[in-house]
């Protein structure tokens, strides 16, 4: 009886731990700065985390399968640059004086397919040669960055015009576009993870791969799809970023993989796979976003910001541990 009750409290804590952390953080900030709780600031934070959330959703799937994807930042940069480049200057093949122009949609789809392809390549290497995702995606991190530099020649691709800018800066029904995109991504991801075979298999592979294999699950297929989705969502982030900045920066997305992993882990997803949730990741990203903008609002010195962020990550993960004591 008491046990049952205790169990309940435990569960509540587990379910809402990151929300609680989030609330605490918000209250503290609201007390320290009257500018924090303005609707405008809230929208800013939302808009700012939208990219991280998109990436982190993909990262969550990868980590649920007990993998990791270090290449998201570079893939983001490359697919953003490709989309921008194609939209601005199309493809020219002087030799056969051929010119292919791209509409916004065409350019965006091209960007997506770049992201998806690189992600699929990650998945293929990892499953085909059974090498650790850490290494495969580490290699891709370098490769995709180099590719971006080649494609852009090291120069930002700018001047994409207002239509393209709408994706990143426009509003629709009183909500910023990036937030809309993110909401859609999150909802789809939640349905996939909780309600479909595919999602179920992701958890199964992360929980016990050999058992999953013995149940006839095609591990490689699932994993390749997961990394493809991760690449795809990195591309989505890349498009949003490019459009927000009205410019594709060659060094866009540097170290985004770390922010993203931080969001996933703070959200209570276990790096040893099989345990975690999309909604948790969203909360994790929110915590980071709120922290970032809060530290700036309070005009904390850039030096201290890093230190504080580090300790917040530690604190969040230790809380998770305390609520899941005997899980790996």
């Amino acid at each position: 009886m008491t046990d049952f009750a205790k169990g309940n409290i435990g569960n509540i804590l587990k379910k809402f731990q990151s929300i609680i952390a989030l609330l605490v953080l918000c209250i503290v900030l609201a007390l320290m700065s009257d500018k924090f709780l303005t609707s405008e600031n809230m929208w800013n934070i939302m808009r700012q985390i939208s990219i991280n959330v998109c990436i982190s959703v993909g990262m969550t799937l990868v980590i649920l399968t007990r993998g990791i994807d270090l290449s998201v930042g570079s893939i983001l940069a490359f697919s953003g640059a490709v989309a921008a480049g194609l939209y601005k200057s199309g493809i020219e093949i002087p030799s056969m004086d051929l010119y292919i122009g791209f509409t916004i949609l065409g350019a965006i789809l091209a960007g997506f397919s770049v992201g998806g392809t690189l992600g699929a390549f990650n998945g293929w290497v990892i499953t085909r040669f059974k090498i650790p995702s850490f290494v495969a995606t580490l290699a891709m991190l370098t490769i995709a960055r180099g590719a971006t530099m080649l494609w852009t020649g090291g120069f930002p691709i700018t001047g994409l015009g207002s239509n393209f800018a709408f994706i990143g800066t426009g509003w629709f029904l009183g909500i910023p576009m990036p937030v809309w995109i993110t909401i859609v991504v999150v909802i789809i991801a939640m349905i996939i993870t909780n309600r479909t075979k595919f999602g179920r298999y992701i958890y199964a592979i992360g929980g016990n791969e050999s058992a999953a294999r013995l149940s006839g699950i095609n591990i490689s297929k699932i994993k390749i799809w997961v990394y493809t989705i991760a690449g795809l969502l990195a591309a989505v982030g890349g498009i949003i970023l490019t459009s927000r900045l009205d410019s594709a920066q060659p060094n866009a997305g540097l170290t985004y993989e770390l922010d993203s992993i931080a969001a996933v882990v703070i959200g209570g997803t276990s790096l040893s796979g099989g345990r975690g949730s999309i909604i948790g990741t969203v909360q994790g990203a929110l915590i980071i976003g709120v922290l970032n903008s809060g530290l700036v609002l309070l005009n904390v010195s850039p030096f201290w910001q890093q230190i504080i962020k580090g300790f917040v990550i530690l604190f969040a993960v230790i809380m998770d541990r305390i609520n899941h004591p005997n899980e790996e």
Partner: protein
Amino acid sequence: NGNEKEGPKRMAVVISTLNNPWFVVLGETAANRARELGYEATIFDSQNNTAKEAEHFENIIASGFDAILFNPTDAEGSVSNVKRAKVAGIPTFCIDREVNSLNGPVTQIISDNFSGCVELGQYFVRELNKQGNYVELLGLVGDNNTWNRSKGFHSVVDDFPQLKMVAQQSADFDRSKALEVMESVLQANPNVSAVFCGNDAMAMGAYQALVASGKAEEVKVFGFDGAEDVMDAIKDGKITATAMQSPKLMAKTAAEMADKYLQGDKDIPRKIPIAVEIVTKENIDEFGVYGNGE
């Protein structure tokens, strides 16, 4: 020394980072000019990392280049590299940034960040006529250019008590970081009248944040570099001013000096300062992107 070897002579172009278009221009102009003058040219990316730069120097010495066109990562940290090259009989020609060694490099073609920002600061003060709240966006806090610029700026602006710096944040020389930081800063400080940015990428980011919050009109944005999109923005009166360092001019000069030196003409001034010019809507037409010297 490699002077007697057959084939064309080779120049190494060591650039502090290629993560920023301004330096890409610097590097590529230098390399291209060297090629026009009949040399093989290779670009090395130090990735803002003095250790990497040291490695490049060792490799350059080992593979016997004939001259080094050098954009240092750090005034002090790079000295030892220059000296090592000199010992190996390879002349070094510094571009844009100084190294604290008079007899190390053959010559230093420099546009001083500090003095550049002093001028910019003076213009800044005039534009704001000596009063108002302003925000400063720093570059990478680990990068000493960040601080040279910041110090030059403050050496002027801090003499005017009515000019209040309401926020000083870092945006890592990065456009998207600048956009996000500026968005948040504007929340805390709705009434600012100017933003001083450590480079043009950040200036563009800050400007976009201002546009998003409808403050683009009343807030003046100041950049540093003279990058393409900022030049256009100044034309359209979106950005108030930037400091043009003429990387192309510096790079060309360096390559030509090196050529001259290798031809045997050794009389070259130890320092060739290239003026940093303030680019505004008024004088914009005198400048090409990244300065003149086409």
